[in-house]
């Protein structure tokens, strides 16, 4: 650490920290508001919004909202559905997209530049524009499961997973990272006798930790926050994820305390996941030059 010598420097550093704390507080405030409000009855919650008390756990504090939230909606099921769909999609997409990127960067095949360009071009297509055609496609696809061959994927887990296993952003992230790796590593492994899959799994994957973490976080957030697609493809609550579950709380009379309790509960997995991968995420964002 550099030694602080002059008062001038000390002032500069103090100001810098003050600014950082201010920004941190601005970002933390909504979360604090959400968590604190989840313990308050509706009347007090609405009254407190006009003062700083909105951020303080004072007054009539209880877990009533949480109990009420569980009574109103199958919270556990929604969280389970979301975590199941999200984690399977994240694992599958990391595997598929990293292998696709590996092929685009390290293998030679005809038309690879064009195919990659087309994939990256799909980044600019908003999901809303393809949602309906996609719905029609998945509605007429076969699936082999416990009941033999069935037609139409609606109201299942896999309709929420399979269409998102490969996506342009994740492929792009991996391509950018792999392009910066020395090609000699792959060549050395090839000369050492490794097959392409061994090069991928034994040489490239172990050194691509940061990009796997980044892709995992981005994919996790995108999947966990899915609303439109699961709303379209799941009619029974058996398969519905947390975001669709939110609508249970916006009925005739919105119970804000319960909404806050529900939101607090469904935010926890995201925070835990992010904190777990934070270090690698920052390294990767810095090294790939992609900043959100």
């Amino acid at each position, binding site marked *: 650490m550099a030694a602080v010598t002059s008062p001038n420097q000390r002032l500069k550093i103090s100001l810098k920290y003050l600014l950082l704390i201010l920004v941190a507080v601005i970002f933390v405030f909504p979360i604090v508001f959400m968590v604190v409000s989840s313990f308050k009855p509706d009347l007090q919650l609405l009254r407190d919004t006009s003062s700083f008390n909105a951020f303080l756990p004072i007054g009539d504090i209880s877990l009533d909202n949480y109990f009420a939230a569980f009574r109103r909606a199958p919270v556990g099921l929604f969280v389970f559905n979301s975590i199941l769909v999200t984690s399977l999609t994240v694992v599958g997409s990391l595997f598929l997209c990293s292998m696709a990127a590996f092929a685009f960067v390290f293998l030679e095949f005809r038309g690879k530049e064009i195919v990659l360009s087309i994939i990256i071009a799909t980044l600019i297509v908003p999901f809303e524009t393809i949602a309906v055609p996609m719905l029609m496609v998945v509605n007429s696809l076969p699936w082999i499961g416990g009941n033999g061959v069935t037609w139409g994927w609606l109201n299942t887990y896999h309709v929420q997973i399979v269409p998102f296993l490969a996506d342009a952003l994740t492929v792009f992230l991996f391509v950018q990272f792999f392009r910066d790796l*020395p090609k*000699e*590593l792959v*060549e*050395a*492994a*090839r*000369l*050492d*006798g*490794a097959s392409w899959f*061994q090069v991928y799994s*034994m*040489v490239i994957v*172990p*050194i691509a930790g940061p990009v796997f973490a980044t892709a995992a976080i981005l994919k996790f957030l995108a999947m966990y926050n899915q609303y439109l697609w699961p709303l379209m493809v799941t009619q029974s609550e058996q398969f519905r994820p947390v975001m669709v579950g939110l609508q249970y709380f916006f009925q005739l009379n919105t119970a804000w305390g319960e909404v806050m309790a529900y939101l607090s509960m469904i935010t926890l997995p995201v925070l835990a996941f992010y904190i777990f991968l934070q270090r690698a995420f920052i390294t990767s964002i810095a090294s790939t030059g992609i900043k959100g």
Partner: protein
Amino acid sequence: MAGLSLQNLQKTYGKVEVIKGVNLEIEHGEFVVFVGPSGCGKSTLLRMIAGLEDITGGELSIGGQVVNAMQPRDRGVAMVFQSYALYPHMTVYDNVGFGLRIKKTPKDERDAKIREAARILQMEHLLDRKPAQLSGGQRQRVAIGRAIVRQPEVFLFDEPLSNLDASLRMDMRMEISKLHQDLGATMIYVTHDQVEAMTLADKIVVLNAGVVQQVGSPLELYHRPANLFVAGFIGSPKMNFLDVTIDEIGSGVVTVSGPDMKPVSIPVATDGLKVGAALTLGTRPHQMQAADHGPITATVALVEHLGNETIVSLRLPSGKAIVAALDGDFPVTHGATLHLTPEASKAVLFDAHGTALQVT
């Protein structure tokens, strides 16, 4: 036994021809150095032998077997890269043993081979370290170790020493040379450093613009360069070139002179030569004597005292620059006039196409 045979080997990228029909025979156990300026195709040629670049045309045989379509791992070659290409997440032990692990060599045998390679390269104490914890020289050792354990028929080195500092480079050069003697394997080494080429090679292949200019032993290339390119590329300081014309043709000797040189007789095969023909005379800086009289008169422009010798840069009356390597004690000062005599028996004459004339 793994000699190599390159028959009319070609490589093109789109319409760009990088290797233009290389023919070369490499005997088993030979140390061959590919040398040439940047972009001459030497690394590409090495990578074609390794199987890392497709062969556009011609035939490549290793140990008598055509390997054009063979995967790199099946060619019996091992390569040491300029950037070392060590797997950063593996220890030295795992790096060296990676190829054996892939080949599913039994653990005991693998361990024995790794430790033997470490012993040969004196890096037993480094086996538990990761590449990031090693110096440049140590990394290079590991890269060589990785090649050794596979016991390849042919070792390929792609400018392996260019990232090392001068003294380390000399040490590693000696080690590679010793390794060649110990293992007796065929080695092909790419460099742009002609000192490396001269000191290591049994046979040097000089390349320029994808074409082999000359193949021969280091001394052959030094004393009898086939053309102006080889003459200028091999030897340090570079060979001096003077424009001359033929004054007289004798029996096995021609007398030449030029704007910067009085007549000098050079022994050469005289077939097809004509009086008045324009030639280029090549004479090495170390093959010129300074005396009170001499056919070349020049002004001293720069003096570099190296102790054992003095390198003198001179300016000729025509404005051309030449270099002479004189005795270390030779008294010479900036601006002085020197008279130089090229050693006629070692001078080389080149025709108008730049091809060396045969010596009788």
